[in-house]
């Protein structure tokens, strides 16, 4: 190289330092930053001096040697300090010197053209954020198209020289007028220009781009640029399952990774360029508006990415288990050379990633609200929120008077109810207000009034998982349930789980909510089961806490989870039946998948054993859905169609077993009945003795004991004792919009028909019923019905008249026919929404002494009365009845005897004809 060129290069470097690109970007944590900045500047200068001092006659070979030697020094510096940000700045400085030197060498030959071209750093390199094996984005900015064409050969040689040094260069060449055009087909290029930085060549040319063209371009296309960014981010987040909590995250592209940090920086830059029409006075990557937490998060993740690059020797950003262990052993990003368990180190990673993810999504949502859903729902929201303490602002949920959520924890919970109901997100300010309110909760203690009613509303709402995630992110969930803190960002290191334990728990809930919109055949089957659940909130509560034990010092995580929920129940005020259901689900949540994978699900003995453990169809439904949601939340591919079908097969076989063996499986007080007697006797009045209780339980189907809580059985027993003085004992209570009627009386002809007919005559709609009898001939019938005309709700005095009416019919003092005459239209609507054809099936093998009859038909008011009247008129005795409704389809199972024996084929045929004629 000529001496003059050498002198110019020296000037170039000095100018470059003076104009600031070589100076490290502004950092928020100023005290700590000054020392680091000094150290980095020195290191960058050393690299520059090394290049200056070399012979310039054959730049290729010597630059290569310098690059290798300086790169090794950068790695040594990283090994000694663990400072990832410094690595990226040092490498950017090193590449700057080499690129400038090569530019001089290759473009000096074209001396007249050199004045019309500038070398510009773009993207991460432009930001001075060059990770050890990252691509080097360069722009050859030409004054015009002719220059661009003329310099093609020099450009190629320049790039070849860098490639020879094993640098991965991504070059682009543009004439200045080209850069003024918005490239809708290449959004990445438009965005990469936001980080452009002058390296060498015609500085005036660069200034024109930087100070005039780019600010004008951004001002003109602000909305499109933001939309491009939003779209690229949405696609990337969707690819990574929209969650930060991957067990082996990609440090660059996962949600909460470095790309999200850059997205936040770009959004700030777009706003600045639009407002000021020029680049801010403090060039560099960091925008002063980003919060210190995000800067710390960047430092942590940048250090991790440097480690991954150095260890893998390539641009690989997957933070594998192995590398997590290495980082934790080093104490990287925490305290160097102070090792910590990998799970703890990953918790720190997730907390940092969550900060970045929240920042990026909030800025994106503020910049580009989701238009379609927003526009569609504005009217609906306006109406809904007109008298609410909450409001909608830019598509986000805000609190009108922030002080209210701090003062009143119920108001805070109501906010999350709205989120769960409407799928709205909180505004950035509201999130901060919620965090303050959560901090106040800690001092108020966990005794929140109406905690369970509020939590129930959240759990059953369509967007429950999103609301729970937000409650967790803002610290509300662990304030309400300190037990949940055990699994906060907890990593389980195996090759199956993709998510942390807390994220997995939220995904289980989301998987069931997503069933609403699922379309495959087997997904629809599980969706049907979900729609049939009586208390879905209990299933969701169990899902929320099922793996809490994984973060507790118990050998068996189920034991830990049960211990945790036992602490939670008293705060929620759940009744004993609800408590038992949730405990059952958590205790047995692995049972169904164990049967699925380790037992022959076509073997009747497997089904029998499993059915005995489950006990009731309601529990089976909840366990089946639990298993579905739990497997599917392990990783996106875990629930294969093969597994889903096997799960469905096990469910169907077990459900059939439960319904077809009710009559066989009965309580014998001297065998399994003893245990039940001991559980129930403390709950009954003091003058009752064990003998009486044994007598009551003798011969009842075991299904009866499993379907009712000990408290309910105790109540039925008390009612049976009163039958000595009254012919019929009734208990009626409302459970939300459902009423439950329990009838105890001595068995008699037309009993079931009489009760179901009276209920229908009052205009009620039966959707579920059971009829059981004990060995002494006491029947225990339970009916669940709705009150479509709200007769009982609006006229509480009618409750007594309703009960009297049933007693009168059963005692024969009022005829059912006279009651029925008052009711018209018991055949229901003429046109069914979903036509259901009638199927009648008999089975003589399920029971040793009765015949099973299963009817599936179109549901309508008075249906049960119609069926049971036919059975009674034919002279059948009803041993057991199980009545169920699935949408507009009634599925009724009866165990019948005729003159104390099974029904023969002849009777079955006649009965089928009579029923078909009636239905």
């Amino acid at each position, binding site marked *: 190289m000529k001496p003059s060129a050498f002198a110019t290069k020296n000037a170039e470097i000095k100018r470059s330092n003076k104009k600031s690109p070589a100076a490290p970007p502004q950092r928020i944590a100023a005290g700590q930053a000054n020392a680091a900045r000094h150290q980095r500047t020195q290191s960058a200068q050393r690299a520059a001096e090394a290049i200056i001092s070399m012979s310039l006659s054959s730049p290729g070979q010597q630059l290569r040697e310098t690059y290798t030697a300086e790169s090794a020094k950068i790695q040594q510096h990283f090994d000694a300090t663990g400072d990832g940000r410094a690595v990226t700045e040092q490498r950017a400085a090193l590449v700057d010197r080499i690129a400038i030197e090569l530019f001089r060498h290759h473009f000096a030959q074209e001396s007249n053209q050199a004045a019309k071209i500038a070398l510009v750093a773009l993207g991460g390199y432009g930001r001075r954020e060059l990770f050890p094996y990252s691509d080097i984005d360069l722009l050859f900015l030409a004054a015009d198209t002719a220059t661009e064409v003329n310099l093609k050969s020099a450009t190629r040689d320049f790039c070849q020289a860098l490639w020879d040094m094993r640098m991965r260069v991504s070059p682009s060449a543009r004439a200045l007028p080209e850069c003024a055009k918005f490239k809708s087909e290449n959004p990445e290029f438009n965005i990469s220009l936001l980080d452009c930085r002058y390296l060498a060549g015609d500085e005036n040319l660069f200034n024109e781009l930087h100070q005039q063209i780019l600010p004008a371009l951004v001002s003109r296309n602000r909305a499109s640029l933001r939309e491009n960014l939003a779209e690229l981010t949405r696609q990337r987040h969707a690819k990574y399952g929209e969650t930060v909590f991957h067990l082996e995250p990609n440090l660059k592209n996962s949600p909460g990774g470095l790309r999200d940090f850059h997205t936040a920086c770009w959004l700030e830059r777009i706003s600045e360029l639009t407002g000021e029409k020029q680049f801010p006075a403090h060039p560099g990557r960091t925008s002063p508006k980003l919060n210190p937490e995000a800067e710390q998060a960047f430092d942590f993740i940048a250090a991790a990415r440097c480690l991954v690059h150095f260890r893998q020797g390539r641009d690989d950003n997957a933070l594998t288990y192995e590398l997590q262990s290495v980082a934790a052993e080093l104490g990287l990003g925490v305290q160097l050379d102070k090792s910590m368990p990998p799970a703890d180190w990953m918790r720190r990673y997730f907390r940092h990633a969550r900060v970045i993810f929240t920042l990026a999504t909030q800025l994106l949502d503020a910049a580009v609200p989701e238009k379609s859903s927003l526009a569609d729902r504005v009217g609906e929201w306006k109406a809904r929120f007109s008298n609410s303490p909450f409001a909608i602002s830019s598509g986000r949920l805000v609190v009108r008077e922030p002080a209210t959520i701090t003062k009143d924890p119920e108001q805070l919970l109501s906010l999350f109810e709205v989120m769960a109901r409407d799928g709205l997100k909180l505004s950035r300010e509201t999130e901060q207000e919620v965090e303050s309110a959560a901090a106040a909760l800690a001092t108020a203690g966990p005794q929140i009034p109406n905690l369970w009613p509020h939590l129930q509303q959240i759990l059953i709402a369509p967007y429950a998982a999103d609301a729970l995630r937000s409650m967790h992110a803002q610290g509300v969930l662990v304030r309400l349930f300190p037990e949940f803190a055990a699994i906060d960002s907890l990593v389980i290191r195996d090759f199956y789980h993709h998510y942390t334990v807390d994220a997995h728990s939220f995904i289980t809930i989301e998987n069931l909510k997503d069933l609403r919109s699922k379309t495959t055949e087997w997904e629809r089957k599980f969706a049907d089961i979900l729609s049939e659940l009586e208390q879905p909130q209990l299933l969701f509560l169990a899902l929320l806490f099922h793996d809490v034990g994984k973060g507790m010092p118990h050998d068996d995580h189920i034991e830990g989870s049960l211990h945790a929920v036992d602490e939670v129940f008293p705060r929620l005020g759940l009744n004993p039946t609800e408590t038992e259901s949730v405990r059952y689900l958590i205790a047995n949540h692995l049972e169904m998948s164990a049967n699925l994978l380790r*037992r*022959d699900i*076509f073997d009747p003995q497997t089904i029998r054993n499993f059915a005995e453990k489950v006990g009731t169809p309601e529990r089976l439904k909840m366990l089946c859905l639990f298993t579905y949601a739990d497997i599917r939340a392990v990783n996106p591919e875990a629930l294969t169609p*093969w*597994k889903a079908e096997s799960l469905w097969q096990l469910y169907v*076989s077990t*459900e059939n077993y439960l319904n077809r063996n009710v009559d066989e499986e009965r309580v014998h007080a001297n065998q399994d009945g003893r245990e039940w007697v001991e559980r129930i006797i403390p709950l009954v009045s003091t003058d009752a003795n064990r003998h009486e209780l044994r007598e009551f339980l003798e011969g009842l189907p075991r299904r009866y004991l499993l379907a009712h809580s000990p408290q309910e059985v105790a109540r039925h027993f008390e009612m049976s004792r009163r039958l000595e003085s009254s012919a019929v004992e009734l208990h009626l209570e409302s459970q939300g919009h459902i009423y439950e009627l329990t009838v105890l009386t001595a068995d008699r002809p037309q009993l079931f028909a009489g009760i179901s007919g009276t209920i229908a005559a009052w205009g009620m709609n039966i959707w579920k019923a059971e009829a059981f009898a004990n060995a002494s001939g006491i029947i225990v019938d339970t009916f669940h019905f709705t009150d479509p005309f709200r007769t009982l709700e609006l006229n509480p005095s009618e409750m007594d008249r309703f009960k009297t009416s049933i007693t009168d019919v059963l005692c024969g003092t009022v005829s059912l026919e006279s009651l029925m005459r008052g009711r018209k239209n018991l055949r229901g609507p003429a046109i069914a929404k979903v036509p259901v054809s009638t199927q009648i099936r008999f089975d003589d093998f399920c029971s040793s002494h009765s015949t099973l009859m299963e009817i*599936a*038909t179109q549901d309508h008011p008075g249906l049960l009365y119609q069926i049971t009247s036919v059975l009674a008129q034919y002279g059948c005795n009803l041993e057991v009845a199980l009545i169920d409704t699935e949408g507009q389809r009634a*599925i009724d199972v009866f165990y019948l005897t005729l003159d104390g024996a099974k029904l023969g084929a002849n009777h079955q045929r006649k009965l089928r004809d009579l029923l078909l004629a009636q239905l």
Partner: protein
Amino acid sequence: MTKIEAVIQPSRFESVKEALIEIGIQGMTVFEVRGHGRQKGHTETYRGREYEVDLLPKIKIEIILADKLVDLTVQTILKAAKTGKIGDGKIFLSKVDEAIRIRNEERGDQAL
């Protein structure tokens, strides 16, 4: 070299896998499959609806190994997969011409 394809009951898979690891079989490919042999399907009813269960779930294991290991491997699978009931599955053997490890292009038994 021989390819062993064993179609077995899903419930026996864990036992078969453990037995194979015990005799030193290092690699296998596992598929979730559905099918039927002589054990035809059956009709189930659920809530008044009838449906055919004609294809039953099975696990298929594929192992390619040196010929000298074939007998021991087959015996191991037979022992671990057998329940004595219809539907226990089948084992198929076929010759393999060549195996190549992609990483270093080793060939033959070395590549297994």
